[in-house]
């Protein structure tokens, strides 16, 4: 492995760890935050056309198509949910 590749392999995780640390801090510090979008204001977010993954059987297939033909992989899903309308 070249020194350049080692550097690039290390840069990503370091940056990601920093982002995660900030994220965790924000989440922990914000536990008492009042929801700024009220449940009765989530009709548009709840619309099926706003779903991250409306048809999982189809998106799983297409991810497979790309992963078989491209070098990149991962981070194709989302956290799911988030609608908060149930």
């Amino acid at each position, binding site marked *: 492995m070249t020194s350049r590749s080692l550097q690039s392999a290390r840069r990503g995780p370091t940056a*990601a760890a920093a982002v995660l640390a900030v994220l965790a801090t924000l989440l922990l510090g914000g536990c008492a935050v009042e929801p700024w979008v009220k449940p009765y204001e989530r009709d548009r977010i709840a619309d099926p056309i706003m779903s991250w993954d409306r048809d999982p059987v189809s998106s799983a297939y297409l991810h497979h198509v790309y992963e078989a033909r491209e070098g990149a992989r991962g981070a194709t899903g989302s956290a799911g*949910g988030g609608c*908060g309308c149930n």
Partner: protein
Amino acid sequence: MAAISRGSLPRRAAAVLAACAAALSCAVRAGVLPEDRADLLYHSYDGGGVTIDGPSLLVRKQFADKFSASANYYVDRVTSASIDVVTTASPYTEERTQYSLGLDYLHDRWLLNLGYTSSEENDYSASTFSVGVSQDFFGDLTTLSLGYSLGKDEVGRRGDSIFKDTVERQQYRIGLSQILTRNLIVGLSFETITDEGFLNNPYRQVRYIDETSPLGYAYEPEVYPRTRTSDAAAFRLRYHLPYRAALHGEYRWYTDSWDIGADTFELGYTHPLDGGWILEAKVRLYSQTAASFYEDLFPRSRFQNFMARDKELSTFDSRTIRIGASYDVLRGGWKFVDRGTVNIAYDRIRFDYKDFRDLRVTGVPPGQEPLYGFDANVVQVFVSFWF
């Protein structure tokens, strides 16, 4: 290199999991189980001399109030006369069958999921276990999810009963979904994947300059490193327009220990119509740089320790245009079915390689052949039922 990869990954994964575990401790609202649903899909891929088609059946059902089980049966029927095959081997057909089982468990404020996938073909078998957890925060404005997968593959080679090797794969995932306004939802996801074992295709070959050959070049087997670690991070958003339609965008950043770097952009539009129709259009742009040990033409045999001529590891870009339509066929329900849809999607993908040459062209000096490129047509037709 293996020692470096193994040494850095656990530290990274531990940092990710520690941050997530801390964040999970302030949950305020429960999640929900996935909907009961069945999908039957026919898929078809045709491009670059390769045709692949087959069915996919996915069924999901809740039980005992707190559980949801899912099962997927998927088949790839492959007929390949790809450029690699026509230049270094013989066209072939094969079939890959994959079974997946999943279980979701909703407990208090946690949604836990377990999964198992098994894939079989005549020279490769793979098994993957996965576990994940997700939780909502801030009055359900935020959803955080964590996941881990462990895969064990067995690699064989047709016509060679002695060759047998393995691959172990671990995946660490974290995702965040956030409602920002009443019209806008954004998502962040990060995934680290590490592989160890036999990572190259046992049939593919590299070419090198050989002045004794009539073509001016000859072939020998590829040799890949036995480890690979990759990181991918994605940002995505969906925006509800002032009228009933949605825009979505996505960017994914990728890097790995083989020096491949990639960027992916997506922009899409979803538009419902009266009468139960939903129309969809999307553009996707992808570009990547080559692996450090990739060459289209090596100067000599065994030029370096690791050598690849797999076009998926070359410098290239791809562009996709997608159109799709969904029609609601059972809006009033029928017997135990609440609703159903009929769906079709068509993706046209163009691949343009920057340092992979078309060896079907002869009569030119080695390394002067035209660059390779092809179009692929991907069709999906499926029906979905909710019950």
